[in-house]
């Protein structure tokens, strides 16, 4: 350490000399107290001695004060040590540098008594003392000690080479002391060999008392959520997205504020209705399917028969066939009403329409229109009721949801199955030209040039009327007025009165659109054209009683068939005035129908409850099937229809029941293929078949 302040060298010589003197004195004091008394003597002799190389300074310079600041910093310590900092990736100054300066270090040779080394020495002293008592012991000890010494020597050698510690010096000293101790000293008290008698000291601070502090909130409401992620769930999500997008697109397209408003209101209403309505309505679809399944279970055998049963006995029956009864359709509401019309739906092959009314002039009551499906024989799919009996019906080919019916009171009506009303969509009235007598037949026609729906109706009042559906009204046009030929009488004032004929049936030609046949109550059949309103193209004296039905052959364009209450069924070629075939069935014939699969097969039903099926290619003179179909006696069959696809027919009777029958294989015979030839199918074959027959007949006729 440097003195606090240095005396400047530029003091006047006098002082300097005093200083020198003092400094010399101080030195003397330091070294010893010997020179203390001689200080006064020295002070008296004021000899200013100036060294020759002393610096010459001016007074001002001499007076100048220099400030020296005493700090604890070591001026020799480096101030610019840098270390590489891995954190920052640069060299950085080290802030704190070791300021210690060592001036002198000396290794001492004192060892504390309590330390390991001290104790060891102590122990050796004791041993040395013990060795004095017995020579053997001493030698042993000596041996052990030399051993120890030997051990220590290499240790010494090692440690001396190492750091500057007290150890080597101490050991060297130890060695020396041991040698000294070995001979003179007495054995000391034997200390306990356990050198670990140590004392332990501990203290404990006051522990702070622990206190628990807790805080608890209300737990957030929790719900369990679980879901599965399947391929189909992902698919569903995509489909929903797509629908939403399409909806937004549609909304953008239809941009009228009024429409939007209406739409919104409708939407709101819909939403409110949905929320209010009972949940059960959503089960409609499922309930419908279930009902059909339940029915299928109950009528399981019938369903199986319908699908798979082919009467094997037909092989042995030569040419006859049978009709297998399948389902029976009846409804309580239509219990006392006769079946007045039957029609298969052109689109859904299992759906058919039944019209109920009454043929009895005296007992006229209400009417019903029912739609049955073969899948559910116990309950109709649709049902409509009307005040007046339904006499006829027809289903539109292109729009299978539109049904036109003709009533006993002369009205015609159109029902739309898509709409949930139980009332007809359109209805004629007295103003709009309804018939004055029952409407016996209605038929849909092709849409006219303005794409309006139109249909024809024929009635006993002698008019054949064409109805057109213009926007929302039925407009009628009288096409033809049936006149009984040769019955014009001269009335008063030269007026010519015509007796009006009563039309009871008609049928339109399949290919020649304008041509159609009308059957009348008088038994005549007129061939008419839509374009000529007063003249008939041709007249056939068909029957003795009213003509109940006329029907063109579905394949052959020249052949048609008629039936009547005079017990006969006649088949005609429209170019020839006389019938080709005549069949007498012993009972009034209610209806005839051609089979859709063959040009030579047809069925006729009679009022005695029998169904007759004819196949002209097999047997020209007799029916190949002659079977009572309805259960009770006095049950007249009123109508028959072939299913366009399946080999079944439906038969309606005057008790309101409809029975479904399956045709046995014999009745459905297709022309046999000759060996080596291909099986020809199609209308051409059918036509050819019939032609062949007709030719035979014609030949016979020309002969007779």
């Amino acid at each position, binding site marked *: 350490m440097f003195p606090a302040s240095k005396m400047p060298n530029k003091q006047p010589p006098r002082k300097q000399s005093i200083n020198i003197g003092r400094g010399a004195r101080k030195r003397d004091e330091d070294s010893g107290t010997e020179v203390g008394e001689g200080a006064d003597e020295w002070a008296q002799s004021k000899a200013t001695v100036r060294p020759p190389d002393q610096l010459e300074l001016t007074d001002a310079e001499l007076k100048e004060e220099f400030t020296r600041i005493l700090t604890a910093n070591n001026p020799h310590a480096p101030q610019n040590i840098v270390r590489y900092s891995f954190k920052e990736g640069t060299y950085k100054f080290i802030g704190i540098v070791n300021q210690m300066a060592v001036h002198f270090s000396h290794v001492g040779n004192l060892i504390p008594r309590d330390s390991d080394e001290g104790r060891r020495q102590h122990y050796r002293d004791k041993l040395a003392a013990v060795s004095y008592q017995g020579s053997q012991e001493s030698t042993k000890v000596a041996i052990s000690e030399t051993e120890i010494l030997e051990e220590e020597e290499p240790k010494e050698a090692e440690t001396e080479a190492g750091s500057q510690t007290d150890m080597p010096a101490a050991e060297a000293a130890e060695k020396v002391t041991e040698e000294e101790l070995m001979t003179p000293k007495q054995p000391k008290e034997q200390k306990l060999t356990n050198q670990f008698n140590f004392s332990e000291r501990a203290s404990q601070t006051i522990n702070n008392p622990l206190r628990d502090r807790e805080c608890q909130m209300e737990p957030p409401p929790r719900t369990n959520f679980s879901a599965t992620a399947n391929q189909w769930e992902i698919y569903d999500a995509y489909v929903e997205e797509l629908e939403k997008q399409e909806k937004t697109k549609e909304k953008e397209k239809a941009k009228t504020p009024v429409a939007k408003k209406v739409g919104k209101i409708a939407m709101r209403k819909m939403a409110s209705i949905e929320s209010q309505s009972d949940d059960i309505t959503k089960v409609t679809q499922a309930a419908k399917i279930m009902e059909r399944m339940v029915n299928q*279970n109950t009528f399981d055998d019938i369903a199986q028969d319908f699908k798979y049963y082919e009467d094997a006995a037909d092989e042995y029956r030569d040419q006859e066939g049978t009709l297998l009864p399948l389902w029976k359709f009846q409804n309580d509401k239509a219990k006392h009403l006769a079946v007045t019309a039957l029609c298969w739906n052109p689109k859904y092959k299992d759906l058919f329409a039944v019209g109920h009314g009454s043929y009895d002039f005296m007992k006229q009551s209400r009417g019903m229109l029912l739609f049955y499906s073969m899948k559910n024989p116990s309950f109709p799919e649709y049902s409509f009721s009307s005040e007046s009996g339904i006499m006829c019906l027809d289903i539109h080919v292109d729009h299978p949801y539109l049904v036109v019916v003709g009533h006993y009171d002369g009205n015609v009506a159109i029902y739309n199955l898509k709409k949930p009303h139980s009332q007809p969509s359109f209805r004629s009235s007295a103003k709009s030209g309804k018939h004055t007598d029952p409407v016996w037949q209605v038929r849909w026609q092709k849409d006219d040039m303005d794409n309006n729906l139109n249909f024809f109706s024929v009635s006993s009042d002698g008019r054949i009327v064409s109805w057109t559906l213009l926007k929302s009204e039925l407009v009628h046009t009288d096409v033809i007025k049936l006149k009984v030929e040769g019955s014009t009488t001269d009335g008063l004032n030269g007026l010519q009165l015509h007796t009006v004929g009563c039309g009871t049936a008609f049928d339109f030609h399949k290919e020649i659109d304008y041509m159609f046949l009308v059957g009348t109550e008088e038994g005549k059949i007129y061939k008419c054209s839509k374009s000529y309103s007063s003249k008939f193209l041709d007249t056939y004296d068909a029957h003795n009683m009213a003509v109940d039905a006329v029907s063109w052959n579905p394949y052959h364009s020249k052949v048609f068939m008629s039936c009547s209450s005079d017990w006969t069924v006649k088949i005609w070629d429209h170019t020839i005035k006389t019938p080709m075939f005549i069949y007498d069935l012993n009972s009034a014939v209610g209806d005839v129908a051609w089979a859709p699969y063959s040009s030579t097969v047809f069925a006729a039903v009679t009022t005695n409850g029998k169904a007759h099926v004819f196949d002209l290619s097999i047997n020209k003179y007799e029916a190949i099937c002659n079977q009572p179909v309805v259960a009770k006696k006095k049950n007249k069959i009123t109508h028959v229809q072939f299913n366009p696809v399946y080999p079944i027919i439906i038969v309606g009777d005057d008790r309101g029941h409809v029975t479904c029958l399956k045709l046995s294989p014999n009745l459905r015979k297709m022309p046999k293929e000759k060996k080596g030839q291909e099986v020809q199918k199609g209308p051409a074959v059918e036509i050819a078949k019939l032609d062949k027959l007709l030719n035979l007949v014609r030949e016979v006729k020309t002969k007779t």
Partner: protein
Amino acid sequence: MAEVEETLKRIQSHKGVVGTMVVNAEGIPIRTTLDNSTTVQYSGLLHQLTMKAKSTVRDIDPQNDLTFLRIRSKKHEIMVAPDKEYLLIVIQNPCE
């Protein structure tokens, strides 16, 4: 609404039908003609089975969907008609 009620009534009064029940999407019966314990049992079990069947059908082809499920056992036939939100279950004894 009345139409559905009528249909369900007709199904219930059909020949051989033992019971009808309507179950909602979570397997809870809404309407039933059987006693409580039977209903609960049927609804729980059939609901699971229907879900499994539906999942199976859709896994094979996601555009397909289950329309009807019939289980015929010795004693009777269980028919399940699944709907979007509901399940209609009918137990019938097919008359033989």
